[in-house]
């Protein structure tokens, strides 16, 4: 008998059993199954995109299947927050600094009520980055490629059983981890507001190419800028911005394209004035706008 190996296997099994407690299976209907994470005694999280606009789902725990309401989705960082009273203890999140490339993690989820566990590893950890969906994630976490679809939305746990990230499928079979601190940010906002507030400026924008002379004059490195191609009536922008304005920066964050504006807005407290640097008819000036929530609801 090889005792060290058996001990190693037992330790791995204990971790897997511990991780399995913190995850649920999610059934969107019509055979669409994936996973979710038990965030605390009343809250679950899963990936937003795979919900495809559902407003409730069936949640499978080890011995139960119950309907759960989706509180809100943040598509930009792919996090959905669900309400379900499980009474389970809150998940313990790993410290952001504790994860590095090459670490072993286990990805846990559920297919119906059966726990699904896959040992995986961290391929890459990087600084905060912007997703293709225009969201800012606190860290780049790339996990072993080829995540099984039922594990999407499941948790990636470190060797101490702490949650590092939510596993989602990225482009071209890559597997991305949504960092636990990003999830926490969304959960806190949703529990506070009941939704993900959408900051609103009220302009439609397009990218324009800047010629060299103008770039030099504006002292900009980027060859592109965002130009206003529409101002919505009664919007925060209506008072100060005009069709044809170039937006150079918002609250000190440089603007190179329309998506930059969306991201810059998410960092401005709602209801407080923000300074927008504008280039209009040969002049550069600062306009003050009060960013508010989009009032669609």
């Amino acid at each position: 008998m090889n005792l060290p190996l058996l001990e190693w296997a037992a330790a791995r099994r204990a971790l897997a059993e511990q991780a399995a407690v913190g995850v649920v299976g999610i059934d969107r209907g019509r055979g669409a199954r994936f996973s979710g994470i038990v965030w605390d005694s009343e809250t679950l999280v899963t990936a937003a995109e795979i919900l495809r606009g559902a407003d409730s789902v069936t949640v499978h725990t080890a011995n139960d299947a119950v309907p759960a309401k989706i509180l809100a989705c943040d598509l930009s960082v792919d996090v959905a927050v669900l309400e379900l009273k499980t009474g389970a203890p809150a998940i313990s999140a790993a410290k952001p600094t504790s994860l590095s490339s090459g670490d072993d993690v286990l990805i846990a989820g559920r297919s119906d009520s059966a726990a699904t566990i896959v040992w995986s590893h961290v391929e890459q950890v990087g600084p905060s980055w912007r997703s293709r969906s225009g969201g800012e994630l606190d860290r780049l976490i790339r996990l072993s490629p080829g995540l099984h679809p039922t594990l999407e939305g499941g948790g990636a746990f470190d060797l101490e059983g702490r949650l590092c990230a939510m596993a989602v499928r990225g482009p071209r079979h890559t597997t991305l981890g949504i960092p636990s601190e990003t999830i926490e940010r969304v959960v806190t906002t949703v529990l506070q507001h009941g939704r993900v507030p959408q900051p609103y400026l009220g302009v439609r924008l397009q990218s324009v190419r800047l010629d060299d002379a103008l770039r030099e004059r504006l002292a900009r490195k980027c060859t592109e800028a965002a130009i206003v191609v529409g101002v919505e009536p009664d919007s925060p922008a209506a008072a100060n911005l005009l069709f044809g304005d170039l937006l150079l920066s918002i609250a000190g964050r440089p603007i190179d394209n329309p998506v930059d504006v969306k991201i810059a807005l998410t960092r401005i407290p709602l209801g407080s004035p923000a300074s927008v640097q504008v280039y209009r008819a040969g002049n550069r000036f600062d306009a003050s706008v009060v960013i508010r929530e989009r009032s669609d609801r």
Partner: protein
Amino acid sequence: MLPSSSASAATGNALVIRASGPHNAAVNPIVAAASATVRRELANLTQHAHFDVQAVAETPSELADFLRAAPRSWVVTGGALTGIRPFIESARAAAAPVVAVLSRRSDPEDRSALDYGGLAVLRASPNQETFQAAAIASRAGLSVWDPRLNSPGTSLDSVASPLSPRERRVLELTGTGLSTKAVGRQLGISPNTVKFHLRAAFEKLGVRSRAEALMAAIRRGELSV
């Protein structure tokens, strides 16, 4: 093994049709692009137009080698204009016809540099008929220019089928994180109609997910921020 009867049946007119028709191996194109994704897309496009891919070149020099080995073949390339220029040059040096499919954001400011016999320049995602016609024309030594590329001063993206007001509104509400049902309730339409509008918007924007659609619509100036 191919039945020998088909070869003997191919006589007279049948042979002529085969020689210019899409199923003859000699007229199958070489797909050339630096990006693997683009090569895959071009291969799909080529196959939809009933051509088989004869070879795949990843670099301009590889393309030149292929063209030396098969001097009568033609080339399908695509992507951003700066990236495909070297491929076009390789083909031009071998006097091989080229069908170039420009990516959505590629804006050829100078048409004259691309205007010569044997080159067909198409806008992104041409339909099957357009692609076939371009292939035939370029191989006949004609110069082809997709009229959708010919709108000086305007952004290509804004020219490409704008979203309908309904599609825009559905996308806008979806972007706030509302469920399909909630969007439907707000607009007084059924969830299925919401999905229909979303699918149409995805198609126009060339995306596959809600989050990507939002970003694409913001970039095009269709949605406000």
